[in-house]
């Protein structure tokens, strides 16, 4: 699974993109976040305040409840500030 990070999430994780083999037990974005936090102290720090993190599953905005089954890429980022 391709995982992307933007803005300060990218800075905290220390990578714009990573490829991860996910355990089959992970069903939702929230499951994935809990699992990612275990992968490194940087990941843990990036997701420390989950309230500030937004996500997209296959380039559509998602929520913690969004299913990740069959997804090709999942992105994490802060609330958007364009315009």
């Amino acid at each position, binding site marked *: 699974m391709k995982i992307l990070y933007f*803005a300060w999430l990218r800075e905290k994780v220390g990578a714009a993109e990573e490829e991860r083999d996910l355990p089959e037990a992970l069903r939702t974005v929230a499951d994935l976040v809990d699992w990612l936090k275990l992968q490194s102290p940087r990941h843990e720090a990036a997701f420390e305040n989950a309230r500030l993190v937004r996500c997209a599953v296959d380039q559509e905005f998602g929520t913690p409840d969004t299913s990740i089954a069959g997804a090709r890429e999942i992105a994490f980022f*802060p*609330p*958007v500030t*364009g*315009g």
Partner: protein
Amino acid sequence: MQRILVQEEDFDVAAENAWLATPDVGGIASFIGTVRADRDGAHRVTALRLEHYPGMTEKALAAIAAEAEARWELTGCTIIHRVGRLLPGDNIVFVAAASAHRAAALQATAFLIDWLKTGAPFWKAEELANGETAWVEARASDDAATAAWKG
């Protein structure tokens, strides 16, 4: 008819208006967002860095334009968003809507910029006079503006 662009270069407003000016157009409304230079001292903004999510951005902007076209009778609409490093006074974003009637063009333009603020994957970081770089925080007022359209 919609025109969606994400680019580093500035846009040419006259050319954009000309693209929208088809024979059935009675009015073209537009909004240009610029990099403000209104703070002094250590927190003066010396540059703005705009990051986005290539691939998703274009899809999100096209969906916003399609929603505007569904809500109002438009002859065309345009969204152009710049990315990269911008300086105070630079243009950031151009949205425009053309219609036979002015109310549709004006309302669609307000809708486009309000939805773009909360519905497209862009992030701004400010380079400050004191050498620090700070990510811009999302504003509750922008969420409220989007929510108002969902009525």
